[in-house]
């Protein structure tokens, strides 16, 4: 069950907004398709991210994939422990495996609610 209080991008990032801060990660669907994860690069605290642009990269055994930001703003926190504990992504993609927190100034107009995202994943197969 995916959280209903999150919004999702078709590129499989999720975003939970609270008090002007967006917590961002990748969905269970993304993790299952990437399979064995190897490396994760996240931005530094204090850096800027932009809607629709890459904020990091993740490598599985077979592919490097970019991570796309659903918001624009300043990175106010980074899950520094995650790159050394990539198994969290499979166990708790919407919890312990959050990636960054962004004090945002703009949101993507293309975010999906959970029902629309579920349908998108089903269509992708």
């Amino acid at each position, binding site marked *: 069950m995916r959280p209903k209080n999150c919004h999702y991008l078709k*590129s499989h990032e999720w975003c939970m907004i609270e008090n002007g801060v967006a917590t961002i990660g990748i969905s269970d669907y993304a993790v299952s398709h990437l*399979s*064995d994860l190897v490396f994760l690069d996240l931005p530094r605290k204090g850096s800027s991210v932009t809607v629709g642009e890459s904020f990091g990269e993740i490598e599985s055994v*077979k592919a*490097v*994939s*970019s991570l796309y930001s659903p918001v624009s703003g300043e990175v106010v926190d980074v899950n520094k422990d995650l790159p050394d504990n990539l198994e969290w992504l499979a166990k708790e993609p919407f919890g312990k495996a959050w990636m960054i927190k962004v004090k945002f100034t703009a949101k993507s107009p293309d975010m999906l609610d959970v029902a629309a995202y579920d349908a998108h994943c089903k269509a992708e197969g």
Partner: protein
Amino acid sequence: MRRSAAQAGQLRVLIDVPADAAWNMAVDEALLSVGRGAALRLYGWSPHAVSLGYFQRFADFADLPAETPIVRRLTGGGAIHHGDEVTFALTCDPALLPRIDASYRALHDAAVRALQSVGVADAHVVGGAPASPRPEARWCFAEPGGGDVVTPRGKLLGSAQRRIASPRPRILHHGSIVLKRPSLTPFVAAVADTRADEDAAAELRDALVREFTHALRLAPRASRLTDEERALATALSAGRYRDASFLRRR
């Protein structure tokens, strides 16, 4: 932007002369970023060079001979010493190869059919789980695992992939098929183990085009870089791929 009717159902085929490492990686990134539809680029390396996987540490290769050209790929995986080989870069929309695991199976099965058709009869795909990735193995060909294309001599095809979602969802799949064993990675298998004649490379290129178009259910169309692709490749070749900060980013 939607693909034009003329592009739909076709595989652009670009047969390039061997080029230096920066140009090769720049062209592949251009085809990934601004290319339309599906394209299969076949090329070689002159001078021979080492490519690092996107996440590999430059410092782990400090022991390479000083004169060895080194470039960082956009794709992941381990390092490859590109000597005499047939290299391919397939770029396409992910709708053509939606799942990473299935995309490897489809392309590796096609590569095996191509290899067998030119006489490398013992080429096959290994069953079982993929090999464990770095940092244990810094060379792509060092530890064959499930899904890899091998002969009894070792790994014959190195593969790696990059997937992007912006500006459009696209895939870049790199493959290197060893013709002759490179000096830095003598543990690899090579086409020359069974086909050492001068015609082997050209026959293998033709076979790869045939088998990839068959696997992807596309029709081949001889192609060249568009003006947009060439302009971006020229900029990337002069910039990112000759930039020490990109090479040493890790």
